[in-house]
């Protein structure tokens, strides 16, 4: 095993916006062509690159995380936290640089990921478990534990569209929490649950670290970070701004300057 569970080098992710946006209809292609031609006639030849608006969601990101670390990830909305986690989960791909990931990644990026509203809790448990990478035998073996952790015993045969938002989160988190992955990524998913559930989740995440798993945990709750994560990374506009012991980081964050 290498020293690092996650190693990121000069990672960059670029999105193209505006007139070059992809999911338009054919009519948009004509409009753009006409607009460009008229523009050139009026203003002379231009670089094509000028007409495209580009957003670098991540740029020059370097990061090393050892096996077994719990790392907090904070930053304003749009700082690039979710994009980073998505790249590490192979849901989206970088434009530059690379990431090395040692082992299997389990992610919980959004609540209710992959739930089908018409299906029961039981059916969705299998559906989401399989989508996140569990084998059917694994799901069957862990079924009771997942249900017990989520505290949804009585509701298993009800369609999830009838579940409260709390139940939704509990079931979703419970499935993710039982993944057999050595790297776990959580993107602001605990906020929806109540206090008891949050405590359970934090406890479970601490257990994960004791098991030798690597965890990246996104949260806006600074107290949770202080309690859970010895190390915190602060992101800002696609770059890593700070990376160090949580106490020091929170000092800077709360008392800038």
């Amino acid at each position, binding site marked *: 095993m290498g020293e690092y569970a996650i190693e990121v080098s000069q990672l960059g992710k670029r999105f193209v916006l505006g007139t070059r946006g992809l999911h338009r209809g054919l009519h948009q292609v004509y409009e753009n062509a006409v607009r460009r031609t008229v523009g050139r006639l009026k203003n002379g030849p231009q670089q094509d690159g000028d007409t495209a608006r580009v957003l670098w969601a991540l740029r020059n990101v370097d990061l090393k995380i050892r096996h077994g670390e719990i790392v907090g990830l904070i930053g304003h909305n749009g700082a690039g936290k979710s994009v980073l986690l998505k790249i590490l989960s192979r849901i989206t791909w*970088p434009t530059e640089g690379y*990431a090395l990931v040692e082992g299997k990644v389990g992610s919980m*990026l959004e609540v209710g*990921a992959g739930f089908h509203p018409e*299906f029961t809790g039981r059916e969705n448990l*299998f559906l989401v478990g399989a989508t996140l990478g569990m084998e059917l035998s694994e799901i069957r073996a862990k079924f009771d534990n997942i249900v017990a952790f989520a505290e949804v015993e009585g509701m298993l045969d009800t369609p999830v569209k009838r579940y409260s938002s709390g139940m939704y989160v509990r079931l979703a988190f419970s499935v993710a929490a039982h993944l057999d992955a050595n790297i776990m990524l959580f993107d602001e998913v605990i906020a929806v649950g109540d206090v008891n559930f949050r405590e359970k989740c934090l406890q479970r995440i601490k257990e994960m670290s004791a098991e030798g*798993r690597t965890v990246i945990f996104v949260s806006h709750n600074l107290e949770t970070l202080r309690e859970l994560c010895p190390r915190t990374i602060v992101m800002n506009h696609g770059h890593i701004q700070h990376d160090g012991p949580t106490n020091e980081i929170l000092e800077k964050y709360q008392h800038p300057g």
Partner: protein
Amino acid sequence: MKFDSNHLVTQRIEPHTGWMPLNLHEVYEYRRLLAIFVWRDVKARYKQTLAGVTWVIIQPLITMVVFTVFFGHWLGISSGDVPFPVFAFCGLVPWTYFVHSLTVASHSVVGQQSVISKAYFPRLLLPLASVLGGLVDLFTSMLVLIPLMLYYGFVPGPQILALPLLVLLAALTALGVGLWLAAINVRFRDVNHAMPFITQLWLFSTPVAYPISVVPQAWRPLYELNPMVAVVEGFRWALTGETELPLRMVLISGGVALVILVAGLYWFRREEIMFSDVV
């Protein structure tokens, strides 16, 4: 330590552009997830309405009646030695499967944004699940076809064993074209609007409502490039035994379908990278 460090595999995640390897072995790795997707689609379709099951039967049945009245009686198109209802239904069974699978496949990526943005799996699973899920409907409509044939006095002969191969040809065609449409749909959502138009044109280009003898000889080479022509003619031969085995057409169609499929696989894989960014 719970995790045995010696068995950890390192993945390198880096930019991808251009033509990608097909990685079909990965589809095999994720075969259980594929089964789950098929199960999900089939169950959702049959769970929501009681008519879900009957719709699978009613749609081709009513179409058969309409064809028999309009084309068989009013237009007086001859269906040879086969009664028009049987003639029509034999064509409608594989046709309905093809159209349904194709339509669902074309929407399979765009409509699955929730799953694509949350988990990693080869996206090929999505159109593949559509084509496989359609087989359940095909089977159900066959259950109606057999009594219908028996009613008209047609007992299937040994040619019926060719049916699975013909179904395979239809499935490969649906998958091949479905891959193209699914990928194009992500860039241009027009595909959703174009589907009824595409399927309607395709229906007219396939001998479902009329016998192939209607098509002039000069047009036949072009006409036979449509793999569904061979499928429909093959179905009629396999079930009724009243026509000749369209071997040449089947071979040509197999070739056409394979070309579309392989090209579609490469195109889909090339476009796959940006699905989660755009969908």
